[in-house]
């Protein structure tokens, strides 16, 4: 790491709020990347008649465990549970619950019996698992569903974890691509200036005036909803965010003496832009980043809330907010959403505040 970056890292670490925010956020995000291992309706590991199976990764038909169907085993069904634990005893189709309790008590005996086991994730529901409830949905938090269930009887905690992951991944995809396009476009405009710049500015003005919401509705109507399409459309209308900023930085930097010096050496335009000028623009870009990131997360939630966002099956925080609005008698929905957004956005803002300060050469930390 260069001395400059070392200094920045030191400054960042000295900013305790930013540093701990980064630690917490990283832990949450990395955990959510492995959400399948602790919020899933499939066991992590199955031992059936001495063989090991990993349903999290692989598809196993029910027939694998002595069942009838060639479709994927539904591990949450009592019959399937019984078959796995008992090693495929036929009686499981008739009285699974009794057999399981007998096995637990050690009183069960059958010639085919061979004890098996399953390791379940901490939260044995995925974001789209429908549950059988005692009362009407949404149900309040209890020992089974720690944050209750939503309108569709799905576990709120599982949906939150997957929704968090989806929000962040969506944001990373959108922001990285949109920023890259925006930076390159701004760089070209600022560096060359003149007619190219003027023409492009007019194009941007027209582009910025396009009603993106209508375009999203129309495109979804034609091509159907999908996450890929949504990412594409949000990037399509999101990339000009950085253009003005980078353009201004480049307009300023092209008169710097070291840029002149590089021109005098005969260095090519692209090299000058990326080696000499882009590092200057990076600081202004970083300053804008927290706003762009929180804006993208909020934008996704807004689209979902309005019903124009992700497909209905996807775990979406915005869709859950809509449910919270529809079910004001179920405050666990609203509270979960509120705290998820508040914590996620605050952590991101704190982190980028720290990053920005660390890049500021005048800022000192006594």
């Amino acid at each position, binding site marked *: 790491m260069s001395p400059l970056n070392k200094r920045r890292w030191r400054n960042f670490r*000295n900013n305790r709020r930013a540093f701990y925010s980064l630690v917490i956020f990283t832990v949450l995000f990395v955990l959510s990347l492995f959400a399948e291992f602790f919020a899933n309706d499939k066991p992590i590991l199955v031992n059936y008649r001495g063989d090991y199976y990993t349903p999290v990764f692989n598809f196993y038909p029910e027939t694998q465990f002595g069942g009838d169907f060639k479709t994927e085993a539904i591990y949450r069904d009592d019959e399937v549970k019984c078959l796995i634990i008992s090693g495929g005893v036929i009686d499981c189709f008739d009285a699974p619950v009794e057999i399981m309790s007998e096995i637990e008590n050690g009183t069960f005996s059958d010639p085919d019996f061979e004890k098996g086991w399953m390791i379940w994730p901490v939260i044995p529901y995925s974001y789209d698992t429908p549950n059988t409830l005692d009362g009407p949905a949404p149900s309040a938090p209890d020992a089974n569903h720690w944050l209750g269930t939503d309108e569709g009887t799905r576990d709120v905690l599982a949906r939150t974890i997957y929704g968090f992951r989806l929000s962040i991944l969506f944001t990373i995809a959108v922001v990285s691509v949109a920023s890259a396009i925006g930076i390159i476009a701004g760089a070209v405009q600022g560096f060359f200036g003149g007619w190219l710049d003027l023409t492009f500015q007019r194009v941007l003005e027209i582009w910025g005036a396009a009603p993106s919401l209508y375009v999203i509705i129309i495109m979804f109507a034609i091509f159907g909803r999908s996450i890929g399409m949504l990412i594409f459309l949000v990037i399509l209308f999101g990339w000009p965010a950085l253009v003005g900023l980078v353009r201004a930085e480049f307009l300023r930097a092209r008169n710097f*003496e*070291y840029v*002149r010096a590089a021109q005098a050496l*005969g*260095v090519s335009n692209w090299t000058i832009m990326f080696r*000499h000028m882009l590092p200057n623009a990076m600081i202004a870009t970083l300053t804008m980043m927290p706003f762009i990131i929180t804006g993208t997360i909020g934008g996704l939630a807004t689209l979902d809330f309005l019903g124009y966002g992700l497909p209905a099956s996807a775990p979406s925080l915005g869709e859950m907010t809509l449910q919270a609005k529809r079910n004001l008698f179920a405050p666990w929905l609203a509270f979960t959403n509120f705290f998820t957004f508040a914590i996620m956005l605050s952590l991101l803002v704190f982190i980028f505040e720290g990053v920005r300060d660390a890049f500021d050469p005048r800022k*000192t930390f006594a």
Partner: protein
Amino acid sequence: MSVLSVENLRVSFQQDGKSALAVRGVSFAVGKGETVALVGESGSGKSVTALSTVNLLGRNAHIEGSVTYNGQQMVGADEKALRKVRGNDISFIFQEPMTSLNPLHTLEKQLTESIELHQGLRGVAARARVVELLERVGIHDAESRLSSYPHQLSGGQRQRVMIAMALANGPELLIADEPTTALDVTIQAQVLELLAELKRDLGMSMLFITHDLSIVRKFADRVCVMKDGEIVEHGLTADIFDAPRHPYTQTLLSAESVGVPDPVPADAPVVATTDNLKIWFPIERGLLRRTVGHVKAVNAATLSVRAGETVGIVGESGSGKTTLALAMMRLIKSEGRIAILGREISKLQKRQLRALRRDMQIVFQDPYGSLSPRMSVEQIIAEGLGVHGVEAGRNKRDMVAEIMTEVGLDPATMDRYPHEFSGGQRQRIAIARAMILRPKLVILDEPTSALDMTVQVQIVELLRGLQAKYGLAYIFISHDLKVVRALSHQVMVMKRGDVVEAGPRDQIFDDPQSEYTKALMAAAFDLEAAAGAGV
């Protein structure tokens, strides 16, 4: 009794948890009606000392010791007491008049602000006082100037306005922090004269901070020489100049670029010529961008430089010196013939020019601005090699190491970043970057102006040595006539885009023909305002 008395002042700055001592135990006093000069090179702590007297430093500064103004302790005094003294009893003039004035306020507004605050004058009375002040500092037709904005004034006028602001409340002590450094020589002389006159008439005391010893000699009663945060020598001006005791003072006093350039061999080939070079920037108006006029940056500049020869271009700011240099490098558009090594380059395309760039290089004024802060020294110096290729059988790092040794840098430092080097070292890096391509022509655009005197001398020596060794042709641009005299064979004097006078060095310096050249020489070598030069 002294007006300002500083005893054992220590100032330290906190950064990254470390504390850096900038001023280490400084003591001096300014008596009534006396001018004391703080002299030293950049980084010696002279400005910090001045600013700490009324606590104008940032929050990360820690001040110890004692500063008394008329018996009143300033160190540790509360904001309210300090504010009463600042701008009222103790006034400041700063170096850069453009950035010290608010660009969005008219002169009237800038000046009235402080008068209203400290004297309680309002409306017509305040306005009358402003006009009086502006006339006092020599702004003609002050009444009509009241509604001007800072950018409508020249550098000298802006500094006069700054002085008027400082005088507004009849201060007892004026602290002038390099008040003339950013000004051209002729204007510098006028501003200094004004300050001296005001001091005499108003009976002020003055603390004068500068790195320029020739000003001190004319101007100060007593001198304190600062080095690394300490006063190494102080005494009456005459004593210090006649018999400096401390070795550092002796170096400072002898730091002047002297000597004559080596003669050019008679058969030296011509490296570069320009013929009636004209650089006009069009002023475009309206929707269709019609050209309604031109900013005439350079009119008809003709020059020729041979191998081993230096052509000095002198002139005040705005005279078109740098524009001419950039046009010769083909970095901006121009009209007229430019030939490098006998080859016409003014019509060449960018691609064809690239190969020629090896032979012509430029070194810029500001060693802080001309090096990319995010590249290591090796990357900076080797950048040209990336374009023009490494010599056959050579390694890039070896070539960088060789050129670094040649310009007087330690090759072991090549992986460091520019900010770890001093101003003089940075200028050596910039010279190395130009020299690694072994050019025939080097354009030096004020290469010594941003440097301290002692460092200037070293850079001039280095340039002279390189010229002798490789037979380089230099075009040397400077407003500092002493350096030009030490380096140039030919001299060209420019004023507002026109070449006023050109000829061999001795002729220009010893027997200037035009009025303008005479005024320049007088200002540079005698520091006396030439009548009629006009601000």
